[in-house]
């Protein structure tokens, strides 16, 4: 079983290394990730939101709904943990010690 896990992990790693051959170089300023929409955020942050920290502007102003969804995820996780770990008193204590 361990040999099988090792072989499958190495196969996945080799496939991913083959995939990085076409990636842009690390730190390239003209890579596609840095040219599409992030210059717009950097240029218009002061004008639209008057905030020098661009990460805060994008997190709270441009992509506020994303942050709202993240809060929903944390709330759901908290509710799940509380429901899993609470002490069951009324419904027969058969699985409590």
């Amino acid at each position, binding site marked *: 079983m361990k040999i099988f896990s090792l072989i499958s992990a190495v196969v996945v790693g080799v496939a991913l*290394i083959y995939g990085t051959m076409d990636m842009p170089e*690390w730190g*390239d300023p003209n890579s596609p*990730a840095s040219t599409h929409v992030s210059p717009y955020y950097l*240029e218009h942050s002061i004008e639209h939101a008057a905030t020098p920290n661009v*990460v805060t502007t994008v997190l709270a102003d441009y*992509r506020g709904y994303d942050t709202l969804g*993240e809060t929903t995820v944390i709330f759901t996780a908290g509710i799940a943990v509380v429901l899993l770990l609470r002490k069951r008193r009324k419904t027969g204590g058969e*699985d409590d010690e």
Partner: protein
Amino acid sequence: MNDFVLGHYNYWMFIGLMMIGFYAMMAKKNLIKKIIGMNIFQSAIILFYISTSAKRGGVSVPILEHAAGGHGSHGVDVAHYANPLPHVLMLTAIVVMVATLGVAVAVTLLIYKRYKTIEEDEILMKIKEGSSAPKELVDVRSQKDSIKLRTNIEYRTRNVEL
């Protein structure tokens, strides 16, 4: 060749970290070890995203200078700041990572409470024997009984009604 290696070694490093996490999730028997492997896996993915946002040559953090004085957007040199968009996405991903960790730890505690062990093979053995987990069997049996009882009662009431 040297330029190619210098431009791509960071991606290979994150792939190595991801393989370590993946192997730990599959091969380790202990549940806490599996959770640790999941944490390493997620950190490697976040490292990959942050790597795409780095820029070469004297790049500063994405906080604009001289923001108080200038009113317009004239002075912003885009090549001088790192790309802020992957940072924002990865802030979300880190918080979701901790939420996942919390739920995984809660499920592990419940498993320990029922089976008194956190080794995967022992848990599977105990499930197969059915010795340490009689509750499920009893549950299933009583559920079947109650269903039979209920259908019986329904049958009788229907008969009475008829």
